[in-house]
């Protein structure tokens, strides 16, 4: 039996908490954490007689997400009740959207192993999050409704994903995009991005989909990858052994590294969806959609292409900058009036990124150097006043002290030496002190030349204009 005979088919349901200030149907804060049940009111704990009032920001955020994923926007949409009993769901129904989601029929493209591929987006709808059950500290369970009523969007993909690599790239793409358009923090460790994976296998060449299982509620890339690996193998093994996969919901057990059945098709909930009579239809005009579209920032994909075409960045560097909204902003502000934006990119990637330990720091890009100071530094380097390597030192000093680059250069006397006569003096001095290297150079050893230049740089504490040192040195060695 060969696993390679099989193809894995997956579709994702990605739940993303929106970063509105208040909850979807009341005025409670959406802040993460807080003592249990302190971010709650009669509405979000579902006390009798309370009514939901839709937070308009939620609609706007969902439409932003829809536009960023090339979706159509439903002009007449509604909210439905999804009925089921669970202690974390105060009203015993979740307000969601059933047949008229806000956004539908979109796509995002992903690149895996250099190959570009479209992943269809079936729909994006809005809904409310549930609370959280706590099983520690006492016999029995406690429930915390702080998260209840935090707005979510659910992004449902078509079954277009074929490998865990594709899933990873797709999720990363969604995450980058949502952060970019400023609708979510996508903090997986806080549960603000979670996903269900619908997964089936079939032999290559088969046109019909296999029976799928649903892996529920995973909130770490690592778990998702492991769960897909385990579940696809399990399904293939089972089929190869003559079994038939049954449609069911499974959960990833991280401790044992297996997926296990939660409930089968027979035990599946009948959610009895029906339009929520407490809420009016959501009517979105073409004009409103256009207004939202106009406020969307340039998306990472477009930025990358512009960075490559307009600024001559390599695709690799363009990715490293455009993927982070704050970095891209910094980059674009600091290249103002710069002849070689590539230098700026190199310095960000080489000199600034190296100071970060975590991905989060890169994302936040909360640095003590302002874009205008950075721009000034690059300009000074471009003008030849200081060399690249002095530039690094100045940046370091800027980082520590917050001083402007020119101030540092003047205070520390770091201005590049470009007085030819002065330099010639020093070159001669170095040559005289290193007769052996001079001999070697004349004997054809190029390396010796570099060590002589190095001597000059050392003598001038790196301030010598390198090009000029080269030229003068060559003249003197003739």
């Amino acid at each position, binding site marked *: 039996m060969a696993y390679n005979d099989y193809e894995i088919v997956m579709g994702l349901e990605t739940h993303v908490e929106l970063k509105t200030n208040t909850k979807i149907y009341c005025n409670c804060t959406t802040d993460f954490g807080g003592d249990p049940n302190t971010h709650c009111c*009669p509405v979000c*704990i*579902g*006390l*009798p*007689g*309370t*009514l*939901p*009032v*839709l937070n308009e920001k939620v609609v706007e955020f969902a439409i932003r997400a829809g536009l960023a994923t090339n979706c159509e926007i439903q002009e007449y949409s509604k909210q439905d*009740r999804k*009925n089921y*009993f669970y*202690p974390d769901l*105060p*009203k*015993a*129904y979740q307000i969601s959207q059933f047949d008229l989601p806000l956004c539908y029929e979109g796509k995002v493209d992903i690149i895996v192993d250099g190959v570009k591929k479209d992943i269809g987006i079936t729909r994006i709808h809005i809904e409310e999050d549930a609370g959280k059950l706590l099983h520690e500290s006492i016999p029995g369970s406690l*429930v915390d409704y702080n998260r209840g009523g935090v707005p979510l969007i659910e992004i449902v993909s078509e079954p277009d994903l074929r490998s865990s690599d594709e899933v990873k790239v797709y999720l990363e793409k969604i995450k980058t995009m949502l952060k970019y358009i400023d609708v979510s923090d996508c903090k997986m460790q806080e549960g603000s991005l979670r996903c269900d994976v619908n997964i089936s296998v079939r032999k290559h060449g088969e046109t019909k989909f296999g029976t799928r299982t649903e892996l529920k509620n995973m909130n770490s890339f690592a778990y998702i990858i492991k769960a897909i690996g385990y579940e696809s193998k399990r399904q293939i093994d089972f089929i190869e052994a003559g079994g038939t996969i049954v449609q069911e919901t499974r959960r990833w057990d991280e401790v044992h590294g297996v997926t296990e059945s939660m409930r089968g098709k027979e035990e599946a909930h*009948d959610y*009895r*969806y*029906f339009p929520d*009579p*407490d*809420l*009016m239809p959501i009517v979105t005009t073409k004009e409103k959609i256009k207004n939202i579209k106009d406020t969307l920032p340039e998306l990472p994909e477009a930025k990358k292409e512009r960075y490559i075409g307009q600024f001559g960045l390599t695709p690799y560097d363009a990715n490293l900058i455009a993927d982070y909204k704050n970095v891209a902003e910094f980059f674009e502000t600091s290249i103002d009036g710069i002849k070689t934006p590539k230098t700026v990119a190199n310095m960000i990637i080489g000199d600034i990124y190296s100071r970060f330990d975590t991905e989060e720091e890169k994302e936040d890009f909360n640095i003590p150097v302002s874009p205008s100071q950075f721009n000034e530094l690059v300009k000074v380097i471009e003008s030849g006043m200081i060399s690249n390597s002095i530039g690094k030192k100045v940046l370091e000093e800027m980082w520590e002290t917050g001083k402007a680059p020119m101030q540092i250069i003047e205070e520390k006397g770091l201005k590049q030496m470009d007085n030819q006569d002065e330099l010639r003096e020093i070159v001669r001095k170095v040559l005289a002190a290193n007769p052996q290297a001079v001999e070697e150079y004349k004997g054809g050893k190029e390396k010796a030349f570099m060590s002589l230049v190095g001597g000059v740089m050392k003598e001038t504490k790196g301030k010598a204009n390198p090009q000029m040192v080269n030229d003068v040195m060559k003249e003197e060695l003739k």
Partner: protein
Amino acid sequence: MELHDKTVHELCDMLDNNETTSVELTKACFNRIKDVEDKVQAFITITEDAALKQAEETDKKRKNGEVLGILHGIPMAIKDNMCTEGILTTCGSKMLSNFVPPYTSTAVNKLNTAGCILLGKTNMDEFAMGSSTENSYFKKTKNPWDLNRVPGGSSGGSAAAVAACEAPFSLGSDTGGSIRQPAHYCGVVGMKPTYGSVSRYGLVAFASSLDQIGPFTKDVHDMALILSTITGHDPKDSTSYPREYPDFTKALNQDVRGMKIALPKEFFGKGINEEVKSAVMNVAKKYESMGAKVEEVSMPMSDYALPVYYLIACAEASSNLARYDGIRFGYRAQDVESLDDLYKKTRSEGFGDEVKRRIILGTYALSSGYYDAYYKKAQQVRTLIKKEFDDVYKNYDMILTPTGPTVAFEFGQNSDNPLEMYMNDICTVPINIAGVPAMSMNCGFDSKGMPIGMQLVGKHFDEFNILKLAHAMEKELGLNNKSKL
């Protein structure tokens, strides 16, 4: 005439003229309650201490020239499905027998702000499901006109409290007739305003798309006063309609000449008691003699109103009542073995039979595979019923019907047969489905002296013309609406 017998507008005048005080009024009400409540059983909770304290403060304010509104100092009773902060709100159910809400419903809040004094919370059919108030977990309210008869329902306590002069006015809620039918049975005035004109925030939901809060009063003038106070847009209720509401007292003492009134023959047909029919026909004749134009029309879709109502109301109720699970508030069953067990026992023990019957019916109507045949079909027919009302209103200003097929029945008479009980709603249910306003007012008595109600049904947001026609008829009939209790 004693203080407790007086109408709200009479009491307002007395307060304004310093002929009485709020404390005096409130005491008069509690004295009346002490005298008759044993017989009537209209209240679940009486808030005497708080009421007297509030009345004192109200009087103090008045003395200082600070009058909150026209109703400053007037006592009231509230149906026990409207949340009142710090005061038990049971919905007539064991399920909420211990529920003290931390907030007050908008309608009650508006009355509080206007200076009204809460006397107590009134009895009702459990979760407003019923037509006789016999479905209350707590007690059976009696009809003040005949203590062997039901007061109607589900707002039976609120209707009886006003009819027995325990409260000058009260609030009820009406999902399929729960204000108008008890008003008819108890000989008082009861209005279900247009859906969306009174906020539902804080009204414990039965069927969200049909529920509407409205007043019970002793006469039409009082109705205009209370209605002017409780209507208005509420940002906390998305279904509340943003518009300006008129001063309804302007509808009083107006000429009704030239108004066009429709009598839909389906509301006068099979099952309608002859004495009821002739009382309402008498009203029709009088309107004609007053210069209004009265014509018979046909509204065949109203035959479908009852099944449509029971499907939609029960479907919504099955979802609205799912939150009573014993987890956060209300009744919780003891000695349970699992979460499922907790749910099952809590709901089995906490709900009464009628509530369970409707939850089961509604759950079924929404179930996968049945949704299209029941819930969706019902919504489609609802659209047709609405259209039929719209069509009538193209040619008429008002629809006149009986409020119910019979006068108040005796205890136990209909309680064995739910279907027959549902027939009591046949004249009132179509109005909730269409969302239009309607009011019941006494228009005569049967041979045994039981009051008979007539129902005026207006266009959307046209409570004004209802009050206009009603006030004219009230003056014309000059009935003595006081029970002998």
